[in-house]
């Protein structure tokens, strides 16, 4: 239902969203590499955050997995912040999902995004139950220290084609930033 080129185009848009939003500073170094699924029962202490971008004929489920350890906390939490890692990362993930949503909105008029939702990490083993058209799993490393995972899961009800990302989303992105400031 979705061509290899379309999958690649979604993945490129996803990588763009990750690089733009999962880092705290623009100068932070972010690497993204494909990974294999983890064996069930090996995800103790990990947290999942789910975001869905829906259209009438497809949905993109984005799953972020973070490890609540001192390295992750030191990176995402500011000193004396009253917010927890869960709260801060939900905002970060929301921005990342929002960016992907805007990228896809350039091509699909009717598209909307859910709010983030935290899940037990063991749920990750049952992604096939959502009958995805394809799943792409990535390990994300920031500044060679912070490790997290980002999974893209695409479910289609009808055949779709997704074109390569354009600069239009960047323009919308810049506009959205200004709106938030004012």
């Amino acid at each position, binding site marked *: 239902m979705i061509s290899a080129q379309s999958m690649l185009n979604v993945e490129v848009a996803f990588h763009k969203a990750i690089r733009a939003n999962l880092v705290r500073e623009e100068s932070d170094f972010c690497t993204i590499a494909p990974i294999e699924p983890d064996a069930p029962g090996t995800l103790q202490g990990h947290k999942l955050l*789910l*975001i*869905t*971008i*829906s*259209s*009438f004929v497809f*949905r993109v*489920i984005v799953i972020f997995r973070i490890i609540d350890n001192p390295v992750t906390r030191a990176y995402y939490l500011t000193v004396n912040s009253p917010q927890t890692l869960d709260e801060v990362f939900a905002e970060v993930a929301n921005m990342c999902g929002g960016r992907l949503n805007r990228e896809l909105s350039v091509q699909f008029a*009717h*598209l*909307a*995004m*859910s*709010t983030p*939702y935290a*899940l*037990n990490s*063991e*749920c990750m*083993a*049952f*992604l096939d*139950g*959502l009958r995805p058209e394809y799943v792409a799993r990535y390990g994300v490393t920031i500044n060679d220290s912070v490790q997290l995972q980002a999974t893209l899961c695409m479910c289609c009800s009808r055949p779709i084609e997704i074109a390569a990302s354009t600069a239009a989303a960047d323009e919308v992105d810049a506009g959205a930033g200004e709106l938030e400031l004012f």
Partner: protein
Amino acid sequence: MNADTDVDNASSASKRAALVRKTESVTQAVADIKTLAVAFERWHEDLILMTAQSRGLNEMGEDLSRIARQMIMVSINAAIEAARAGDIARGFVVVAAEVKTQAQNVQTLSGDIGKTLHQGELLTAATFQDIQAGGKMLMAAISGLELMVRQLRSELGEGTDP
């Protein structure tokens, strides 16, 4: 000539009146559809409850698994003590072995229940989010339709309030 103009004017006024009536019907239909938001809120609340229940069941399953593990330890210790006691406790060795078997069965069942609950939790959350996003999508489409109707009413010289 005047008679023709009168007929044209009457026809035009009649068409306009029909258009206004249709626009009013569409305005009412859009207003009715907008109450879908109430249904979305209801589904949202129900799904939050379902997810909370699923989490509660998961915690109960983990408790059950913990109890089963303790029962296995107790049965092993009982078997050791019975072996020390010799022939007099032979029957107790059998009982301890049976307790251990049953505890292991409970542990397996608890693991299977946990897997099913995790699967359900993911499905529920994904469906919940799809409905939530779908609701936003639908409301945006309805708002677009509402705007078009307002523009049409404005062009017809009607008020813009629905």
